[in-house]
């Protein structure tokens, strides 16, 4: 107990250091748990969706038109079918996907929970995840954005025609109907790459945070080396001392871990709406934006904090274990040991970079993440020796004594600063890499969406009759091009008329000669993701036909093929419920005349798509900023702790005629110079990262290969931002040096430190 109080007294005397240790660990834990919380919430939404909407995955019968009479006739003939009316509807001020089911004919286990009488009687109940401003509405455990109701209620809202019939037994389709198997894609599988991406960011932020923790613990051990020796000399065994230090670290880990989990909860709460928007935009996955507090978070958050501390302290604990009780105190031994380790680190870094290059040959998303990890870690490990080389060069090129000292002293500081500088490098490279990827994506995406949205208006109804009436009403005041899409065996199948509008809107990445003629003749187009998934090239054959062209389809997680409209109609006799209109008739006029038809103009769709895109990467941007913030804190922690250790190096220069103000100014310039050097190193590393994201990760995860674009102004802005962050981080240590009392510097000469 006395030993522990002696150890803890150090932290009482070094409160800022203690604070940095706790804050560093809390931040690292917060970013990690925040990301874990978001992922857990999303996955639980997928599970809920999977259990609530199992009918989404049942085979269905489709026809150009299915009336109530058709359904009744099939039932009378003994067909095990259950009708569904489905469409988009405005209910209680919200736009929802309304699904009308017939609970009595659904197979057991597929009907909604609760009292069926409730569902069927009265005005009819509309179930939804969120409260709706509608008397019929009730809350239920459903995915957000979905409303479930009785088919009678749905017919009143969407129109009487049946959208499709669920076939509840495995049978071939009756005459006049087609059997389709909708998407079998599991949301949690589809979104795995996104969550993996997010988790990778979480681990990166955690790693950057651990740099602070390692730095603070290493320094505290070094500062207490004399005390450890005294305690050992007074009879405390190495084992007992190590156990005491472990107990001390455990206390720190639990306090910081608890803080971190609470902070992580806040971060997750702030980021979740954006993540939900991303998942909706990219995958059509509906994730609620409310967080549920789970005990497993607390436990895993505290666990990762303890693990992080043990990882950060392992080197120091090992050294302590081996410390002979009478070994002479070696000030800055920790820094010198780090300097010796520099070459080993660089070698490990080169090996990691070689390993990453080798992994480029291996297909698969995990290999892609391996390349990313190898690139980031390898680059970080090489950084100290690279900076040492650059400062050596600076010293050799300098003519002035002070400039030579400046570079030599900078090199001397590298072992103490290297961890923080590595953290900054990782943060900057991640910023440049992800920023370039997002920028390239944005440029390609907006150009593509502008091209894809070629018509003036897009109309959709749940009832084909409504659309026939609309076309009559338009009476030649525009051109209406039918758009039809269904899902079969996990592939979206689109039917397309050959019209100049679509030829312009569907540019092809690769194609055989005269591809549109080939499409009319029975060949198919496939989207880039399907081509990547199955290794298809123009001229290859699929079940549906020969591939005549491959088109970009950004933002779509599903594989897709395009057939000519005639072939599509033959294969899937579905009602025509969507049209692209080339017309000057205003959208509002159509809405007023046909309230049950959803009308969207080009600008609105474009705006919504771009907004989804921007929100998609808002999370990435936020995590980028947070990581940079953590790296700045790491620099602040290192500079602050080094400022007192560095006095023996600074005091002789002061004694030889440099003022404290000048020395402080040089310290400031040094921090900025190092930041600029790191920014320069981060540029190629970030671009390599962007290339891996665009050419490897995106292709593996989404099937999209995007061109790499350059954004020098963004990099310059990041450079300025990092300089500001470094200046803020250096401000306090520099101010301290400028105002240090001469008596403190004189202690260096009197051996009183």
């Amino acid at each position: 107990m006395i030993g522990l109080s002696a150890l803890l007294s150090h932290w009482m005397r070094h409160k800022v250091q203690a604070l940095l240790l706790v804050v560093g660990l809390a931040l690292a834990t917060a970013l990690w748990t925040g990301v874990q919380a978001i992922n857990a919430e999303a996955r639980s939404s997928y599970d809920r969706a999977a259990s609530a909407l199992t009918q989404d995955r049942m085979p269905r019968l489709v026809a150009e038109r299915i009336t109530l009479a058709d359904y009744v006739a099939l039932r009378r003939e003994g067909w095990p079918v259950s009708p569904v009316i489905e469409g988009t509807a405005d209910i209680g001020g919200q736009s929802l996907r309304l699904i009308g089911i017939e609970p009595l004919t659904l197979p057991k286990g597929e009907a909604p929970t609760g009292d069926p009488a409730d569902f069927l009687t009265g005005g009819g109940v509309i179930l939804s995840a969120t409260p709706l401003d509608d008397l019929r509405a009730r809350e239920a455990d459903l995915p957000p954005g979905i409303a479930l109701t009785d088919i009678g209620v749905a017919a009143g809202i969407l129109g009487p025609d049946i959208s499709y019939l669920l076939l509840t037994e495995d049978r071939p389709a009756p005459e006049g109907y087609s059997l389709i198997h909708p998407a079998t894609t599991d949301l949690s599988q589809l979104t795995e790459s996104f969550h993996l991406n997010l988790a990778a960011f979480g681990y990166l932020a955690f790693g950057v945070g651990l740099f602070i923790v390692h730095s603070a613990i290493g320094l505290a051990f070094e500062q207490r080396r004399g005390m450890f020796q005294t305690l050992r000399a007074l009879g405390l065994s190495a084992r007992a001392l190590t156990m005491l230090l472990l107990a001390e670290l455990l206390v720190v880990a639990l306090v910081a871990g608890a803080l971190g989990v609470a902070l992580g909860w806040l971060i997750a709460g702030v980021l979740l709406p954006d993540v939900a928007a991303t998942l909706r935009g990219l995958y059509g996955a509906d994730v609620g934006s409310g967080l549920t507090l789970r005990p497993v978070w607390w436990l895993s958050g505290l666990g990762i904090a303890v693990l992080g501390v043990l990882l950060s302290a392992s080197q120091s604990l090992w050294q302590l274990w081996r410390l002979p009780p009478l070994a002479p105190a070696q000030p800055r031994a920790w820094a010198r040991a780090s300097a010796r380790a520099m070459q080993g680190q660089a070698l490990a870094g080169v090996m990691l970079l070689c390993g990453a290059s080798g992994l480029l040959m291996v297909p698969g998303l995990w290999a892609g993440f391996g390349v990313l990890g190898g690139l980031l870690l390898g680059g970080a490990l090489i950084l100290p020796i690279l900076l040492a080389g650059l400062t050596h060069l600076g010293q050799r090129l300098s003519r002035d004594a002070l400039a030579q000292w400046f570079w030599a002293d900078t090199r001397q500081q590298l072992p103490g600063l290297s961890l923080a500088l590595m953290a900054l490098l990782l943060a900057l490279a991640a910023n440049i890499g992800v920023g370039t990827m997002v920028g390239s994506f944005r440029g390609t995406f907006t150009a593509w969406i502008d091209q894809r949205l070629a018509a003036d208006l897009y109309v959709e109804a749940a009832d084909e009759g409504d659309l026939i009436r609309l076309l009559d009403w338009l009476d030649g005041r525009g051109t209406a091009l039918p758009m039809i899409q269904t899902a079969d065996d996990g592939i979206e199948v689109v039917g397309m008329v050959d019209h100049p509008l679509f030829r312009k809107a569907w540019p092809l990445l690769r194609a055989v000669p005269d591809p549109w003629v080939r499409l009319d003749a029975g060949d198919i187009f496939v989207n880039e993701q399907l081509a990547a998934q199955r290794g298809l090239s123009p001229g290859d054959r699929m079940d549906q036909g020969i591939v005549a062209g491959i088109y970009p389809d950004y933002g779509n997680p599903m594989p897709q093929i395009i057939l000519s409209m005639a072939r599509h109609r033959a294969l899937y006799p579905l009602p025509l419920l969507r049209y692209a209109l080339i017309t000057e008739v205003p959208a509002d006029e159509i809405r007023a005349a046909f309230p049950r038809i959803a009308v969207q103009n080009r600008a609105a769709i474009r705006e919504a798509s771009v907004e989804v895109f921007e929100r998609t990467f808002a999370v990435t941007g936020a995590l980028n900023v947070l990581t940079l913030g953590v790296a700045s804190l790491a620099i602040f922690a290192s500079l602050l702790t080094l400022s007192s250790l560095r006095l023996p190096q600074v005091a002789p220069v002061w004694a030889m005629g440099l003022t404290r103000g000048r020395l402080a100014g040089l310290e400031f310039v040094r921090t900025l110079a190092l930041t600029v050097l790191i920014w320069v190193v981060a540029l190629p590393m970030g671009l390599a990262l962007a290339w891996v994201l665009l050419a490897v990760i995106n292709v593996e995860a989404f099937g999209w290969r995007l061109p790499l674009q350059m954004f020098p102004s963004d990099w310059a802005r990041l450079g300025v931002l990092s300089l500001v962050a470094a200046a803020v981080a250096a401000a306090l240590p520099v101010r301290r040096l400028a105002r240090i009392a001469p008596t403190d510097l004189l202690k260096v000469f009197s051996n009183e430190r």
Partner: protein
Amino acid sequence: MLSLIDLYKSHASSEGQVTVLDGVSLSLEARKTLALTGESGSGKSTLLHLCAGLDAPDAGRIEIAGRPIGRTDAERAALRRGTVGLVFQQFNLIPSMDVAANLAFQARLSGRHDLQWQAILTEALDLGSLLTRFPEQLSGGQQQRVAIGRALAARPKLILADEPTGNLDEASGDRVMALLLRLVAETGAALLMVTHSPRLAALLDRRVHLRGGRLE
């Protein structure tokens, strides 16, 4: 060369204000050597630091070569660069620079670097084979020889040495002391040396003893 007139210096402690120097006056002529002795805590180092302009007195005047040392940080720094050479007990070399750069550092800082003079110093101090080494690769005696060379490289008028052999064994200390005195004599500088050793103090021209903040 050095005049101290009625110097007072005190510092705050947990027991209140403690007087370290209580009206100290002293003069040291050019080409002369003076030993300042006294018990631990008697204020020897404080007096030396005031002479170097590393600290400021509460009252009194300090003149070097007939000119008062400045009041501002910058003025006192300029004095240290050009006029004063310092030798410390802890050597206090710059760890990031090799021996050659350490030797030349102060002279280059003051713009008075003379390659020929540095070559003479290097030879006299027997540092020729150590020029590319770094301080941590040197023994205590070698480090102190570098520190002496550094202090003399700018040909200062006044050398201030604080226990220059305090961290060395007797044989190394004697060798370093002999070198210091020989080179000080060759450059014509004045030397004020703090020591607690009567034996070393006897090697210098004159000796004063500090007790209770006053000179005896």
